[in-house]
């Protein structure tokens, strides 16, 4: 999936794997990881298959070294008058085979629209993963834009 750079908030994370200066072992490669999160959008697939709209946010955790047991969380927020409201959050299952590898995706976070009332939405994504035997946490990445959609929830 080649997500358009213009639509993404990208949080780069540089992880250094443990190494010892006293030993002559070759240096372990430096892990470079990031979370990419798209803007909130109306899912055309849901509309085609089901005949109703849903607001959806996709995210992906990308590393240059294998990551495992990735728990990639995607949250959808609706903008309110005094505060923003969390309306849905979904996590990848860290135990599933699809939660390991160089890319781990969360494409299952959506919330159905109950009306056509215009509302504004954005997504937040963060992750926990095991890289080279160590646990890491990636800080939250937010969608680049707050998007108004014809979707009351």
């Amino acid at each position, binding site marked *: *999936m*080649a*997500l*358009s750079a*213009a*639509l993404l908030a990208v949080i780069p994370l540089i992880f250094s794997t443990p190494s010892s200066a006293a030993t002559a072992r070759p240096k372990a490669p430096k892990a470079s990881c990031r979370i990419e999160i*798209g*803007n909130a*959008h*109306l*899912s*055309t*697939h*849901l509309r085609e*298959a*089901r005949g109703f709209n849903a607001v*959806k946010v*996709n995210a992906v955790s990308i590393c240059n070294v294998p990551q495992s047991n990735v728990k990639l969380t995607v949250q959808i927020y609706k903008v309110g008058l005094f505060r923003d*409201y*969390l*309306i*849905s*959050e*979904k*996590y990848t*299952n*860290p*135990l*599933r085979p*699809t939660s390991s590898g160089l890319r781990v*995706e969360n*494409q*299952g976070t959506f*919330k*159905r629209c*109950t009306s056509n009332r215009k509302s504004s939405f954005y997504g937040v994504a963060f992750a926990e993963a095991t890289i080279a035997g160590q646990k890491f946490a990636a800080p939250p990445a937010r969608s680049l834009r707050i*998007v*108004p*959609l014809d979707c009351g*929830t």
Partner: protein
Amino acid sequence: MNNEVENSLTPEELEEERTYFQLIYDLEVKNHSRYETQAELLMKNGEFSITINNSLLLYTLEDGGCSFRVSTDGGFDYCKLGWSSLGRRKHEKLKRLMEEFAESEARTILNR
């Protein structure tokens, strides 16, 4: 508004997504009556569990929404997979819970 992200999915990912949403729809139609009963039990007791495809699915009412957890070892360890807001009115809650049941069962069946 902006479908660029969705449109950038590979054909395989698009097919997976269609399969997932279609299964949710099929489950909702097929299990409408069961989901209605489950939703009423969940609203009454605050918790409901069911075994689907050898996985134990646990639903709890939390923070004005419904959380969904899954266990593959008979209930010793649970992994939280989602939370969704439910709305204020009873009929809204019932409808949202029925949608949550279909979505969580589809995830379990497709191993997502």
